[in-house]
């Protein structure tokens, strides 16, 4: 029953994510590895859509991944799966526990969880980077170092990095602006070679 396993996988994602939407990413890669519901490339596309639409990033990702896996009921199931642990845990904490943050065990657990979450997010960033900028399949075939890099994408990424980090009036713009510009660049210069 696909809906049960969808719910369960996203329930685990909600339960073990600590610290922000990006922290959900490693779980999507893990699901892709184990169950093959979606590819790494599809995850990269989901990130693009989830970044540029309103709503919490993690919720958007779950809705999109659920839809890719099992259509509209899949989207609903995955979304309920990812929010269910939050709902249960927060309701318990809000109703019964006072001084939750100041508890020694909670703050100590977070002492380990914060760097762990950063490690997970960094690993996800590396995956996104290699999907977008490298052509590992072609490189494995030819072994030529020049074939490893997708130069069009590397140049575009470099330009966007400069624009988002160094150019003052541009860098405050909404991510949607950069995504739209990149989409147009991709179409004009035939980035996928299609």
């Amino acid at each position, binding site marked *: 029953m696909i809906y049960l396993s969808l719910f369960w996988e996203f329930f685990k994602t909600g339960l073990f994510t600590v610290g922000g939407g990006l922290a959900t990413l490693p779980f999507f890669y893990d699901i892709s590895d184990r169950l093959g519901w979606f590819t790494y490339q599809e995850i990269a596309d989901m990130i693009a859509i989830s970044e540029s639409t309103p709503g919490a990033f993690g*919720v958007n990702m779950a809705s999109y991944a659920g839809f890719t896996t099992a259509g509209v009921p899949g989207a609903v199931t995955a979304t309920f799966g990812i929010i269910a642990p939050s709902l249960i845990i927060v309701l318990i904490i809000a109703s019964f526990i006072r001084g939750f943050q100041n508890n020694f065990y909670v703050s100590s657990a977070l002492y380990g969880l914060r760097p762990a979450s950063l490690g997970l997010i960094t690993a996800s960033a590396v995956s996104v980077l290699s999907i977008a900028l490298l052509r590992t399949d072609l490189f494995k075939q030819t072994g030529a170092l020049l074939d490893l890099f997708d130069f*069009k994408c590397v140049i575009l990424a470099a330009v966007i990095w400069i624009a988002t980090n160094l150019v003052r009036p541009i860098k405050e713009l909404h991510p949607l602006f950069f995504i739209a510009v990149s989409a147009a660049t991709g179409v004009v210069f035939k980035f996928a070679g299609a």
Partner: protein
Amino acid sequence: MLPMLQREVVQKKEWATEEELVDFFSLSQCVPGIIAVNMATFIGQKIKGVPGGIFATLGVVFPSLVIIILIAALLSNFSDLPAVQNAFAGIRACVCVLVANAVVKLWKSAKINVFTILVFAAVFACTALTDISPVFLVPASAVAGIIARNLEARAK
């Protein structure tokens, strides 16, 4: 998201004070799950108990669900078009920069000492190089945090 909650929840509806909102925000970061969802549950629970928490949470995910289903359905019909494939190849280059920027921002705000660097490196290596699931790494690092704090407390 915080500025919007300040306007809607604190100023317009007066469901919570400024201080409560900040408390909910820091609590939401300590609790598993997506921060925006946790915030909604805390605020809803404060106003109307368990049903309030449930309805506030449904409210915060509903727009995501509808918008994403519409976009995903639309895109899945056009994903074979060359223009769409080219556009997404371009978008992927952009997304990796946006994600990298977010990661660098997180690095800058991180507390750095021997323990945090060890945990970071171990989790990164396990995720990047092995098949070990984050479902095991996350509880393991929570336990490591508790052990490390205990050792530090004893050393003092």
